[in-house]
């Protein structure tokens, strides 16, 4: 590959120009990473500016049998944009325009490299918003959100990315450009929009997105409730739902998380609490005014030592500030963290949180929890030193135990971070051989050569065809920690 690379890179350059191609190792190193702990160096990075350039790049890589890994902002948490097989990283960062906004029909047409928050900022003065709001929304891209089917704190009532995408322009694995979905409802044919969302760049590259924008709610009420324990807070979550109220967000932070967040963000959280719930109601004034006091009452009845209701936008933003920066705050209490993303039926929260605590204790590591309680989407952050292979091994063991607990509780191994490299070998925990075979059949139908984002989403041994052979690959963190150390030495 390296020997061929000179002529190959010339052909890449012919498509994207000098300023659209990176081959200098110093520059390539910036594309080794995403938000996970995975690392791998690409052969080249291309930064196309148009769908036609993307199509030409895919055709070239398809013809040459070169692996191609699409990349948004690189904020993913499961290694989805790591070029594990080497090959070319295709960054959509330069395709970031808002092409049109149609408030009458409540939709916007954007390029995949647009930063999530930039869309909401753009339509906000007109009274609209884009609903999916991952915590990384200030950096992550809408194309990346489509690939991962991203959620966020406000998806409890609003849905995730797939519920907000109407039409996609795609470049398929052979370089063909197609449009799937429709601005008008119910386009004919299988729901390819639905299956591209969350496919982690393995079946197509998204070059244009028509997404829904919605009117901002007339009334928003945000409140914080402090409890002695996660169990009490979890029970309050169930009690709120049982009362027939579905808040737009119900976020939980446990005591270790609160300490780190408060030290980092100074959000004014009660650091002595065992757990804090952040709840948000959005609706017409009457509904919010009816529901808010009931939520306060339910929290108090459930043992809340304090319930604080934001009185204005400034206080609301302050309450959210800590939560949105929670992952970044973990540096205050540990050198690194391994975040899991399991989902469970929300009524199983208390018992599964106990198992999370137990899993970490068993391997002698600490864990902090910051998660979407309303969705049952856990984010246990296992704190460890990523340059210590033994700690990494123990973190893996705890992570696997947590995923098992989620599946045994009737849940799933990932709610929004994706399978990527990190969880592909856990797919068998959740799905039967027959289901994995169906996934593979689908992948093969869309990309027979597995050119696009190989070694992702499917279990190793199923996911990557190279030279006609299925390869088993090293995937998990112990191996990666060892590799990190080697990379650290190399650079």
């Amino acid at each position, binding site marked *: 590959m390296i020997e061929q690379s000179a002529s190959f890179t010339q052909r890449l350059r012919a498509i994207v120009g000098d300023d659209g191609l990176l081959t200098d190792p110093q520059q390539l190193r910036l594309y080794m990473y995403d938000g996970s702990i995975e690392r791998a160096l690409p052969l080249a990075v291309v930064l196309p500016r148009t769908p036609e350039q993307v199509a030409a790049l895919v055709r070239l890589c398809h013809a040459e049998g070169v692996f191609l890994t699409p990349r948004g902002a690189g904020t993913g948490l499961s290694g989805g944009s790591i070029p594990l097989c080497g090959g070319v990283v295709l960054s959509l960062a330069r395709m970031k325009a808002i092409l049109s906004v149609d408030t*009458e029909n409540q939709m916007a047409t954007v390029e995949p490299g647009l930063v999530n928050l930039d869309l909401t900022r753009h339509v906000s003065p007109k009274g609209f918003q884009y609903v999916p709001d991952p915590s990384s929304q200030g950096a992550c891209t809408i194309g990346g959100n489509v690939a991962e089917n991203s959620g966020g704190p406000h998806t409890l009532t609003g849905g995730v990315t797939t519920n907000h995408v109407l039409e996609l322009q795609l470049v398929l694995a052979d370089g063909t450009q197609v449009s799937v979905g429709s601005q008008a409802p*119910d386009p004919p044919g299988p729901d390819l929009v639905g299956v591209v969302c969350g496919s982690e760049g393995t079946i197509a590259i998204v070059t244009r997105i028509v997404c829904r924008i919605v009117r901002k709610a007339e009334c928003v009420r945000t409140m914080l409730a402090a409890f002695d324990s996660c169990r009490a807070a979890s029970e309050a979550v169930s009690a709120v739902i049982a009362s027939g109220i579905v808040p737009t967000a119900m976020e939980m932070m446990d005591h270790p998380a609160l300490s780190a967040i408060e030290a980092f963000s100074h959000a004014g959280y009660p650091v002595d609490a065992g757990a804090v719930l952040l709840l948000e109601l959005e609706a017409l004034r*009457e509904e919010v005014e009816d529901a808010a006091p009931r939520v306060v009452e339910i929290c108090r009845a459930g043992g809340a030592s304090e319930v604080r209701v934001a009185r204005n936008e400034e206080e609301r933003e302050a309450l959210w500030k800590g939560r949105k920066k929670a992952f970044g705050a973990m540096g205050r209490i540990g050198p690194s963290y391994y975040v899991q993303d399991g989902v469970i*039926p929300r009524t199983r929260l208390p018992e599964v949180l106990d198992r999370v605590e137990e899993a970490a204790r068993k391997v002698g590591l600490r864990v902090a929890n910051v998660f979407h309680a309303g969705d049952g989407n856990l984010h246990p952050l296992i704190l460890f030193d990523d340059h210590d292979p033994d700690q990494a091994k123990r973190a893996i063991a705890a992570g696997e135990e947590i995923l098992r607990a989620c599946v045994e509780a009737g*849940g799933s191994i990932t709610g929004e971070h994706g399978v990527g490299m990190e969880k592909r070998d856990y797919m068998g925990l959740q*799905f039967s051989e027959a289901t994995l075979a*169906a996934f593979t059949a*689908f992948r093969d139908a869309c990309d027979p050569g597995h050119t696009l984002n190989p070694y992702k989403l499917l279990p190793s041994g199923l996911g990557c065809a190279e030279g006609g052979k299925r390869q088993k690959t090293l995937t998990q963190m112990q191996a990666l920690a060892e590799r990190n150390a080697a990379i650290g030495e190399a650079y």
Partner: protein
Amino acid sequence: MLADAYAPLREIPDLDVIDGSQAGVFRIGEQRARLAVRPRTHAAAAAALRACAAAGLHVVPYGGGTAQTLGHPPFRIDVVLALDLLRGIHAYDPHDLTLSVEAGTTLAELAQTLARAGQHLPLDGAQPARATVGGLLATGHAGWRAGTYGRPRDLLIGLRTALTDGSQALSGGMVVKNVTGYDLGKLHAGALGTLGVILRANFKVMPLAPARRFVAAALPEGTRASVLTRIDTLILRPSAALVLRGWEGELPWKSGDEGSIAVMLEGAAGEIDRATRDLRSALGAAGIPGASIFDQARADDALAQLNDLWGSEIGGRSAAYCLRDDTTRLISWAAMLERIAVTEQMAVDFAADLLDGRLLVRLAAPTGHALRSSLPSCEEFIRKEAPGARLLHAPEWARREFPVWGGEPSAIARMREIKRAFDPAGTLNAGRYVGKI
């Protein structure tokens, strides 16, 4: 030869095999089944499908039989795979706001179960006492509240399907947020059973709104355009809003010169009161003098009557289309079709979804023979103006001759590859779907 091909089906445990005249109750458009199988278990359904695929038999999956005129006529009907014995709630904990239900469960049965816990699954189908969950998913049918609550694919969180190799595949699960693996459930939702047979589906459900109000008003001459502009600015987004014309005897309110408007409001009691005042004010400003109001169960009934329009056929002499675009254009198309219909001596009934950009049009001729001579001019107009229009039901000759699904999508080649991956022998509903997949 076919008799031999059927023999393996009779060996499958938990599979009722029905043939002769008894199988004729299963109707696919104007054709009757000669043999039907009714699995009592998921395993029996998968085994039956595998046996059919191995024997080269063509299979038509069958729910309540309320939408079997959708799509082109199948190339062949060897076996009807009826899901009616796979029914009931598999799992439901109201506190989790999730539900798992067998494919053959009727929408009415499902609604009753949920209502007892003060919840609902806001996916509306025509004829809910017969229509099944599996059928609703397979057809991807979106009722009049889809613009607000979403379509079947939006509320679906998990799916179990039987594939033609006899395996059962899952996707998703029983949690409301899940990105593990490909979301193949979405692929099956709306694929008309061409990729697999839906066995069980999991949904997210939601609390039933405490107050539900249905407001309907006749539109006098010159008011329709004015009311359309005002619906967009209502304080509370209705869960359904339509402009209708015709449907004589099928709706419980009066129609004016320009038809009628129907709006469903759902929310907290105080919210509905303010929304009603707001709506009355909008209607008044548009010159509409009065409105009929139906509350709670009566509102649900009125909405159900509206949803029944989707399946409203006039035996052998009507055809229904769904056109898609923005509201103004939909109304203009409806008016043009009314003019063409007068020339062709046909009756036109229409319902325009103001929230979701869809126009349901039913064209009826005095006889089936008359429809044959009149419908092509309407079809020509529709294909010229709205090439993506879908023919929802019509006599078999029309479904054979007309491009039922509209033009072929740009990704049709990829769709064919996916079909080949899941159903290599073309066992399932062959010929009915887009591009005669």
